[in-house]
C-alpha cells in the first residue's frame, strides 16, 4: 500500500529528525517508493533509481539543518535535491555516492525482488508510450544524439566524431537531450508524490 504523502507530513518529520534521528526512518517510509518511481521513470534503470533515491535521502540527512519550511514543504525540498541528483546522473552517467559515503551508509546490492518492486512502481507501457512521444518531440540532432549515446552505446569521443563536434559539445548535447526528455516526461513537482 503506498502512502498518500503530504508535504506537511514530511516537513514535520524532517524537523523532528533534527532532534530525534529515528524520525528519518519515517521520512524514508513515506517517500522512498515515490522517489524510486520518479527516478525509474526518468532513468529506465532500477539500479540507478535505487542509487539515486538513497543518495537523495543521504544528502537530505547531511543538509537537514538547511530545510526551511518557510521556503517550501518537505516534499518540495526533497524533490529539489532529487532533481539535482538526476541532473548529475544525466551528466556523469552514474549516481553520486558522496553523501552516502559521508554518512557511512553501506551500498547494499539490489536483489532481484527489490528490482522487480521498483519496476512495478511504474507502468511500463505508459512509460514506453511517453518516452516515444518525448523522443519525437526532440529536434533531429538531439534525437540522433540520444540514439547514438543511449541506443548504440557510443562513447563520448566516438559520439563527437559522429556528430562532428568537440567531446565537450557532445557531452553537453547528451545532457541537454536527456534533460529535455526528462522535462517531457513530466516535471518533478510535489503533486507527483501522491500515489
Amino acid at each position: 500500500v503506498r502512502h498518500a504523502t503530504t508535504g506537511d507530513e514530511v516537513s514535520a518529520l524532517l524537523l523532528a529528525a533534527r532532534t530525534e534521528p529515528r524520525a528519518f526512518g519515517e521520512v524514508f517510509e513515506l517517500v522512498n517508493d515515490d522517489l524510486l518511481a520518479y527516478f525509474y521513470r526518468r532513468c529506465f534503470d532500477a539500479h540507478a533509481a535505487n542509487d539515486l533515491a538513497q543518495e537523495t535521502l543521504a544528502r537530505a540527512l547531511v543538509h537537514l539543518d538547511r530545510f526551511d519550511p518557510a521556503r517550501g514543504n518537505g516534499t518540495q525540498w526533497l524533490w529539489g535535491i532529487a532533481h539535482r541528483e538526476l541532473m548529475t546522473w544525466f551528466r556523469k552517467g552514474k549516481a553520486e555516492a558522496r553523501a552516502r559515503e559521508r554518512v557511512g551508509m553501506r551500498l547494499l546490492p539490489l536483489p532481484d525482488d527489490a528490482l522487480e518492486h521498483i519496476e512495478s512502481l511504474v507502468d511500463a507501457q505508459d512509460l514506453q508510450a511517453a518516452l516515444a512521444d518525448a523522443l519525437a518531440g526532440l529536434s533531429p540532432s538531439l534525437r540522433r544524439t540520444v540514439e547514438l549515446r543511449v541506443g548504440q552505446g557510443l562513447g563520448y569521443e566516438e559520439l563527437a566524431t559522429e556528430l562532428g563536434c568537440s567531446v565537450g559539445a557532445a557531452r553537453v548535447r547528451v545532457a541537454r537531450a536527456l534533460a529535455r526528455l526528462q522535462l517531457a516526461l513530466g516535471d518533478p513537482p510535489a503533486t507527483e508524490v501522491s500515489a
Partner: protein
Amino acid sequence: VTARPNYFDSVRDELVAAAVRERGAGGVDADELAARRRRPRARWLVAAVAAIALVVGIGLVATDTQRVEASGIDVVQTATGVRVRFLNVEHTPAQLQRELDDAGIATRVIAVPTGGPWVGDILEIRAPVDLPNDGIRVDLLDVEIDDGWQGVLEVRVGVEALPGEAYAYTVDLLADGERLHCVVSAGDPAADAAAAIAEVDPALEVHWLVRTSDVRGELPLDEILVEEPDVVVDWAIEIADGVANVQLVNASDLMFEPDPAC
C-alpha cells in the same frame, strides 16, 4: 505494485543508523537496528544462522557461484560466465589493470586526465562498438560477460592531470564539494557570479561562454554584459586545474536548476 521486499528495510536501517550517527543521538548501527526489528519474530534463528555463517565462512545468501575478492573489483563466477562489479573505491589504472588481468578478464584500462572528484573514479565502462553486443552487458558499474565473449572491455579511469594539462573529463564546479558550490548557483546574474568568484577564488581563470539567440561564443565578460546585460549562469566546469568555463544564457533557457541545498 509488488509487496515491499525486505531489502528496503535494510536500506531504511542503514539510513536511520546514519541519522543517529549524524545527529549524535547514540551509537546504534544498522546491524543492531535490523537485529532489533527481527528479534520479536525469530531472535534465536537469526543468531543461530549468523553464528553458523561466521564459523563456516559463508554468506547468508545461498549461491552456487564462486566469489573472487579484489580491492577494486568484485568478480563472481556465474553459470554463464562472470559478473564484475567495479567497487566504489579510488582506483589507479595500473592496479585495476592488474586485478582484471589476474581475474582473466580481457580489459584495456585507459587513464583519463582530470581533476577533483574524478581522480580515481571509473568514468566509463564499455565494450568495443565493432563487436556484437551479445555476450556482454554493461550496467553502470556492473558488467556481465558470457563465456566465449571475444572482445576486450574498455575501462576509463580518472587520473590527476599534469600541471597545465587539459582535462579530458571536466569537473562540475557547482556540484557539492567543488570550489564554486554555493558560491555561484545556476540562475545567478553574470556580474554577481564574477564578483563572487573573484572574492572566493581570485586565481581561477574564467572563460565566459555565452549562448543566447543573439550572442554566442567565448567573449570577455565586459563585452557580454554590454550586449546581453541580463544573462545568468547556467553551468560552470573546470577544464584544467584552475581554468574554468562558465556558460551564460538567458534565464528562460536555463538547463540546470540551482542546488536547493545552497
